[in-house]
């Protein structure tokens, strides 16, 4: 299941071309709709669910729909990036919330 861009939050990285999600997407799927100035995924079925774009989006505008193999509707996986850490919030289909913080190797 692919990513979903919340249009109200996305600001197209203000740069008018190549937003961060486009730069980071390993499949070259994310791009900017030049009419709306918002990012979108141009081929949903090719998305690998790597969540790189979700993590890097500074506006928190990209949500990940979890594939059914991992969790059914209602399950969520939300990353929050610090400068050298990441905090994951995992919500299962029953609404149980668990959070994990890790150091990343994005050293300064």
């Amino acid at each position, binding site marked *: 299941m692919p990513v979903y861009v919340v249009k109200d939050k996305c600001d197209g990285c203000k740069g008018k071309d190549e937003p961060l999600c486009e730069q980071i997407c390993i499949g070259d799927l994310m791009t900017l709709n030049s009419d709306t100035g918002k990012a979108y995924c141009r081929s949903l079925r090719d998305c690998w669910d790597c969540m790189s774009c979700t993590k890097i989006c500074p506006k928190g505008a990209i949500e990940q729909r979890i594939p059914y193999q991992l969790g059914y509707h209602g399950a969520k996986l*939300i990353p929050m990036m610090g400068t050298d850490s990441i*905090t994951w919030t995992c919500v299962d289909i029953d609404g149980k919330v668990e959070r994990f*913080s890790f150091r990343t190797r994005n050293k300064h």
Partner: protein
Amino acid sequence: MSDIKIGVFLCTCEGEIEKTIALDVLAQEASGRAGVVSVRKDSSLCSERGISAIREDIDKLGLDRVLIAACSPALKTREFADLGINKYMVERVNFREQCSLCHADNSEHATKKARAMLGMSLEKVRHSKALEPVTVPAVKTALVVGGGVAGINAALDLAAAGAEVFLIEKNPHLGGKVSELHRYYPRLCPPSCGLELMYSKLESNPRIHVLTSSEVESLSGSPGHFSVSIKTTSPGTIKSPEEYQVRTIIAGAVVVATGWEPFDPRPLTEYGYGRLEKVITNLDFEKSAREQGQFLAQQKKTAFIQCVGSRDERHLPYCSDVCCMVSIKQALLLKQANPDNEVIIYYNDIRTPGEYESVYRQARTSGIQFVKGIPSELRQDEQGKISVSVFDLMAGERTEFAADLVVLATGMKASRGTTALKDAIGLATNKENFIESHLQCHPQDSQREGIFTAGCCRAPMDVSRSIESAGAATAKALRYLQGEMAVSPDYPVVDILKCDRCKRCVEECPFKAYSYDDKGFPQVDILKCRACGICMGGCPIGAISLGELSIEQLSGMLDVLDTSYLGEDEPVILGFLCKNDAYRAADDAGLKGIPCPANLISVMVPCSGAVNGMIIAEAISKGVDGVLLAGCADNQCHYLHGSALAKTRLADVSNKLKEMYLEPERLRFASISRDDPEKFAATVKEYAEELKQLGKNPLRIQ
């Protein structure tokens, strides 16, 4: 990192700090910390003895970093400026104002907070880098745009200070609007006297080059060496058409003095300007008085109508500053020319500040009538007179006046020259099209470094204030005309190994200091930069760091922050305080002894807009219970939209928290002005209470 040698100096401030904080305990703990070579306690570090003790330790022990735990870093800056070590390697911890003084009632909490503060600052100084000011060459040439009274004065002042000056004027002659005037107020002397003097000074000064019929086509480069292309039109004749000549001038600084234009009262059809011959504007009056010798004596009955178009939402929403005095001056001239001349001034309010009040008094006593009330319409009667019918608000009755002449006191609006220049060089203007940066603190600045404003392109003003503003602009411009400039190394540095070229910094910089290098990476022009850190706050991957405060330092400080420093049940608030106001207000809270809970640890930032969303997220991830961002009110930010951007970024992180099923209340923005320490203390107290109710941050390490 192993060769770091930090010296920690604790000041008791003649016992003041030690009264509350157990410095000996902290000293002992600090001596065991990694990298700390020496810990010294002194009763007064800022005294000559204290300073020489620090210098001695630096020499003897070979310290490369110094941590001074004493009063606020905003104080005693001169004393600690030169310790014989690079000043970026010296870190100050605010033990007095923001710890001992404001927690005097709870010594235990104060010591615990001081411990946490010391730990964070040790980490900060550990990541410090020695930085030196950069010297940049600058030319000694200035450009003045606009040859009115402000521009001429700026040119003369700049040349007198030794600069080479190019004065350009779009009209074929100098003098601007002043050359169209008959008399100056308040002394009623002819402007030509002052102007002639200025012209002769311009002519005799070999350093001033006057280019008339010239306009700025474009401007590029940085302060110190702007490259300005100027188009000069040579007058055409029947045989030879107009010709253009374009030349490029390298200028260190630019003074914009593009002046004003009179408001055209034709849209106010009720006054019939342009239709009724006897209805003229105040500028028409000046022209007639100057050109027709008998004009003043002949006007038997004259009516002046004030605020035509001014202070009117539909036309000019502002007061044009000069019209009251202009009408009073013209009325006095009419009376002087012939005491039998009848003059009435119809007004809303008369505004004559300062010395001008005496002229107003003189007008009152010389028989000029003042009627509070503005006519709704002007009509010409059968005898060709203009009938003015007004409800006199003071007398409470309607008055009629048959005038030979009606003068409309029209205001000033931004000139076409200002608009053209704004487009040519990309200057920001306010909603009335005047060039503005931060009115109270930097009135003569534009939003671009090295470009200053003089005269009416900034706001409506009279001649004396125009000349004054020209002086102010000159004084500011001189910094860029010294042959070279030292730039403080506080400016941001982009780590191009991390940068993804998203261009957010380029878009968000309020001073347009960013451009692209040949590979498309953003690069900051250190001369245009004001080191506000808005780019550092906006960078989504934290690739931008300021000289005085890097992302690495902030992240390091969060790493070592003990989020249970007051115990398990007390919330911990991390406060990012703007150094211009909120931080100072917090200091004042201490100095005034306003008690404040010890739950907040502050970090001084150049602007609330310099706080990166990742740092806020990281603080929450590390278990901080609340983050308080305190800066100016939106319209007061020295960096224009710093606090507005800070709010947006804070909102982005709170949205994320909501998604994570965390309380968005854990992030808060507060506008705290410099003189409101009570509000600061109340905000912290209230917030700490609220967070206590909310409970512990679930991400706090158990």
